[in-house]
């Protein structure tokens, strides 16, 4: 991988919680147009990394470099889309007391206050929402409240939300935080085909995952974290064979 | 210079009362995570319980104080059993609890007015109190009692929380109720006790206010707001922070009116709250 290929890099990225370094001096780079899995045992800082990248947790040290040109020391959550990033959440965060379709429509609208105030949804938006919901198989459920969905369906709705926003606005980097956890096999298939499709469209996917089979199957590149630090990287085949990685997983 | 030391003394005295309110409020907030607005009316309940026992039934003054405090505690415990515990069981949001406690507040305050009329009553028998000179200012015996009971309550509560298994349970629930339940703590019962203790402290505050100035069914709202502000600027859910916040509030309020007219006192306390929320939202001591 050459330097110009990196769409997202972190340099010495650090995040502390009450003195504990959840992300510790982390320098990694994510290749453009590939699926990169970030793996590591529980508490290794993967989710903190996604939160830092999406502005939900403040950066305590280091920086993030996007597209090789933009250097960020502070990320505000609502700036994410303008950097071409979208994400899902590990613990599902839907707009519970809103209809399923509104959960998708809401991310398609004007970002400015005045724009949104005078905007009504056109057929255009609804087509996008329909497309995204059909892709995850929730179109039939569009009228019901999000809180009425099953666990798996809720995860799918989150993914549909990300699909809709990335279809409309050219999102280059999409972060999936444990999208497969708790899904039925059929749903797993849907999600993995969505991830492949995204890559085939030329988008960069960052995947946080535990399931080794899925990691082998989907990822082009794997980064291993342990205790907030960088441990190893490489192709799935070589990384998953490494002794130190296995040890990290099993615990010392 | 005399004016300054007197204002500081006044601030400390006011702070001691706010601290009693903040202690109970914070204790309850710590385990339930909701703003219990009914906390104010419990001060009035305590005051009136004492008034009934001591002035109307002629009971011994110490016995009356103890019983009055216990009655306020029981009332708080009762509100928890009848209303809040049911809501918590249903996992209602804390805004629901807030609104429910507002309903409790309104009902209980109106009930007090029906039973005791809206008249203002003074509890103190001793008129013409000799004031003691302290540091260039003066304080009354009642005020000395107030500050000592306030300090005693703080120390007692601190000892209870740090030295007993009950205290451990309370702290466990404050940290994480789910986990506390999993390790076998009967969270419902502990919360009940916490309501009793917190409300008893409010009742004590009500009785002391009665001695210092007097009681009225509507006295609760003012005390509550001061207690809440003290808790927040001190660090909500942290009883030590609440005490610090209470004294800070008392001092700022009293020193504030040195420079500006006294009628702005309430505005000053809320301004202090807003300043804190903007610049230090976690309060003096983070929980």
């Amino acid at each position: 991988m050459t330097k110009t290929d990196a769409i997202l890099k972190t340099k010495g990225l650090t995040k502390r919680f009450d003195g504990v370094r959840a992300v510790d001096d982390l320098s990694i780079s994510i290749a453009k147009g590939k699926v990169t899995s970030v793996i590591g045992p529980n508490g290794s800082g993967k989710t903190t990394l996604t939160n830092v990248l999406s502005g939900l947790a403040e950066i305590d040290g280091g920086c993030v470099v996007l597209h090789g040109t933009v250097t960020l020391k502070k990320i505000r959550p609502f700036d994410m889309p303008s950097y071409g990033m979208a994400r899902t959440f590990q613990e599902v965060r839907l707009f519970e007391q809103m209809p399923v379709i509104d959960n998708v429509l809401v991310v398609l609208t004007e970002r400015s206050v005045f724009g949104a105030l005078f905007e009504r949804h056109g057929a255009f938006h609804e087509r996008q929402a329909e497309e995204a919901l059909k892709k995850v198989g929730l179109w039939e459920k569009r009228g019901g409240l999000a809180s009425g969905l099953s666990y798996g369906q809720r995860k799918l709705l989150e993914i549909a939300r990300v699909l809709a926003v990335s279809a409309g606005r050219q999102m280059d980097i999409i972060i999936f935080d444990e999208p497969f956890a708790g899904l039925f096999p059929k749903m797993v298939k849907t999600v993995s085909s969505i991830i492949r499709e995204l890559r085939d469209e030329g988008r960069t996917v960052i995947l946080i995952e535990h399931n080794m089979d899925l990691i082998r199957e989907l990822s082009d590149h794997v980064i291993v974290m342990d205790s907030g630090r960088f441990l190893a990287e490489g192709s799935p085949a070589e990384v998953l064979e490494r002794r130190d990685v296995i040890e990290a997983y099993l615990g010392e | 210079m005399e004016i300054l030391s007197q204002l500081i003394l006044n601030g400390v005295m006011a702070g001691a009362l706010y601290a009693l309110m903040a202690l109970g409020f914070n204790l309850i907030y710590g385990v339930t995570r909701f703003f219990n607005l009914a906390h104010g009316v419990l001060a009035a309940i305590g005051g009136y319980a004492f008034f009934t026992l001591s002035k109307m039934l002629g009971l011994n003054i110490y016995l009356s104080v103890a019983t009055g405090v216990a009655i306020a505690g029981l009332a708080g415990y009762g509100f928890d059993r009848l209303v809040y515990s049911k809501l918590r069981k249903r996992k209602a949001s804390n805004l629901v609890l807030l609104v429910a406690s507002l309903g409790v507040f309104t009902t209980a305050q109106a009930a007090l007015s029906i039973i005791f009329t809206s008249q203002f009553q003074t509890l103190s028998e001793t008129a013409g109190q000799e004031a003691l000179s302290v540091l260039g200012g003066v304080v009354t015996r009642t005020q000395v009692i107030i500050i000592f009971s306030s300090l005693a309550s703080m120390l007692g509560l601190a000892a209870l929380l740090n030295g007993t298994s009950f205290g451990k349970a309370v702290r466990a629930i404050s940290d994480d109720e789910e986990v506390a339940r999993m390790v076998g703590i009967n969270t419902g019962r502990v919360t009940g006790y916490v309501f009793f203790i917190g409300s008893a402290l409010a009742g004590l505050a009500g009785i002391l206010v009665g001695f210092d100035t007097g009681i009225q069914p509507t006295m609760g709202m003012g005390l509550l707001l001061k207690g809440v502000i003290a808790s927040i600027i001190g660090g909500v859910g942290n009883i030590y922070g609440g005490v610090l916040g209470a004294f800070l509030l008392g001092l700022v309020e009293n020193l504030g009116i040195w420079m500006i007219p006294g009628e702005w006192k309430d505005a000053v306390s809320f301004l202090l709250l807003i300043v804190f929320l903007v610049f230090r939202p976690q309060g003096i001591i983070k929980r």
Partner: protein
Amino acid sequence: MKKTFKALFGVIALISLAAGCSKSGKEAGEANIIRIGSVGPLTSDLAYIGENMKAAVELASDEINSAGGIKGKKIEIIYEDGKCDPKEAANAANKLINIDKVTAIIGGLCSSETLAMAPLAEKSKVILLSAGSTNPGITNAGDYIFRNVPSDSFQGVYAAKYVRTKLNKQRVALLKCLSDWCLGVNDSFKAEFVRLGGEIVGEEAFPQDSRDLRGQLVKIKAANPELVYFVSYTEGTIVGLRQMRELGVKAPVFGADAWSDPKIWESVKGDGDGAMYLEPANKAYPEGFVDALSKKTGGKEINVYAPRAYDALKILASVMETAGTDTVLIKKGIYGVADYKGIADNYTFDANGDIKNADYSVREVRGGKAAGAK
């Protein structure tokens, strides 16, 4: 949207029906009753005053009825809560005027209540007689609007003259509660006192429901006045006098007529000694009145407005003895009232419906009891 309006009209129709029924029911069987409304704060911060006034009105109506009523008709008082809030008072007056068809309304206490009710009473030609609203704005509120409580200016001016010339005080501090009455009395005192060459060395106010005046008092003490002019209701006075003693404010205290409430002097005991205040000329309340009112309220409190509320109903009744229930005649009758000897004052109404003069005497507290000043 449609449903909403349907529901709205449905409920309104229901209430009209209920109101209509109760009205016709009342008119049919009760021709021998004269209805009079009474509005004052029965809840809210000032409820303790409102309750007291209500008891006084009750006492007056009991006395009138047991003496045979007015021209053989009994009077029935309907009490409504004005909450010291203009909107609530307007609600109450609307209900009294339109549903109960009252001839007159005694009230309100707060000027806000009276000012909100005045346009309604004026329009429906219902007598409005306030025993507690001292706001100067009421003077011109309408033909049917009366009050048997002096406008703020009288006693402030009287007190200022007394303090300046009789007591010969030069440097005075002011302490007042934040109500229309306190402000009115205070401001007229201040104007007159300054006109007479006196000096105001400090002025502090406190919210009407505040029970901790220590901050204000510390500042007053530091101003080192020769006298403190202290305008407040019973509660503020009790805590204020006590806290003055605690803080060592040595200057003598001069108060307003609200201090004729014996509860103050019983509560503060020795702390009140030396205090002076104004009382309407030589009017110590008759002993029987205090006892009878205490029986009604279950307490000893008599605030300054209760006797006036009692007088208000008595004045109304005496006018109705000749005028009947025709409000135009009653109105004329009240304008003609001259030197009526009530228990709180001697009343003569002027062309604006205010009482004409107010004569005061100064009382001084000694040994926990008020007596005429030397």
